[in-house]
């Protein structure tokens, strides 16, 4: 089963992301997380169970508990060394150049995409 992860606290954004990706690629499922911690727990469980890894991870930066930047730190230390490359795509409303610079400094971050999502942006990573 092909699937991707969405780490996003906004329900409307989740709905938009899922709908738009479904229009481009019908054979892929989504699994959503409202904060970075839940997503890290899931990824650790994926490693423990040795099951199929996600195709890619869509990450919002502003979230409660463990935010996007904290997720990237944890992902780099806890997950990335044990899982062959799963790209992380940042989906954000942030226009701060610093945010982009920090996020793109991680080798596994492949795109920094500004919301709203559109078909052309999706085709960059799906």
């Amino acid at each position, binding site marked *: *089963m092909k699937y991707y992860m969405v780490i996003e606290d906004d329900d409307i954004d989740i709905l938009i992301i899922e709908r738009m990706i479904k229009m481009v690629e019908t054979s892929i499922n989504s*699994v959503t*997380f409202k904060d970075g911690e839940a997503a890290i727990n*899931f990824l650790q*469980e*994926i490693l423990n*169970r*040795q*099951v*199929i890894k996600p195709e890619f991870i869509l990450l919002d930066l502003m979230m409660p508990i463990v935010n996007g930047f904290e997720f990237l730190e944890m992902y780099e230390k806890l997950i990335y060394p044990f899982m062959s490359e799963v790209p992380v795509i940042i989906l954000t409303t942030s226009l701060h150049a610093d945010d982009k610079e920090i996020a793109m400094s991680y080798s596994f971050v492949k795109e920094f995409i500004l919301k709203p999502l559109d078909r052309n942006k999706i085709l960059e990573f799906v």
Partner: protein
Amino acid sequence: MQKKIDTVLLIDDDEITNFLNHLTIDRLHIAKQIDAVRNGEQAINYLKKRIQERKAPPSLIFLDINMPLMDGWQFITAYKKLKQELAYLPVIVMLSSTNNPDDHDRAEKIEEIAYFKQKPLTAEVIQELISLIPIRLNSLEDKV
């Protein structure tokens, strides 16, 4: 040849647990179809729909205990009333996230519950359970 069953039903209110269990079963290639519902009530409706549509019930059911609307115990009570309408009886495995011995004792007294296992559901446990499930005629036909 790898033994294959038709359908597995996952009953758990935690979507991520259902998803992980789905991935684990998927990896083992032992089921043709994997369905998931979020509580006992949805599971009863799922089984009723199967009966109405004259479809075979799932061969294997993984049942969580603590769920909203209708928990695992309440599901069993409702299931007892409709089980005679099923083409055959699914193997029901109750999954517990606590070590509560009371739950284990209670489950052992219920004939509808075939096994009681601790979470998380591992590949080893699934394979062990599959080896214990009878292959049905419809599955055999598919192998020809």
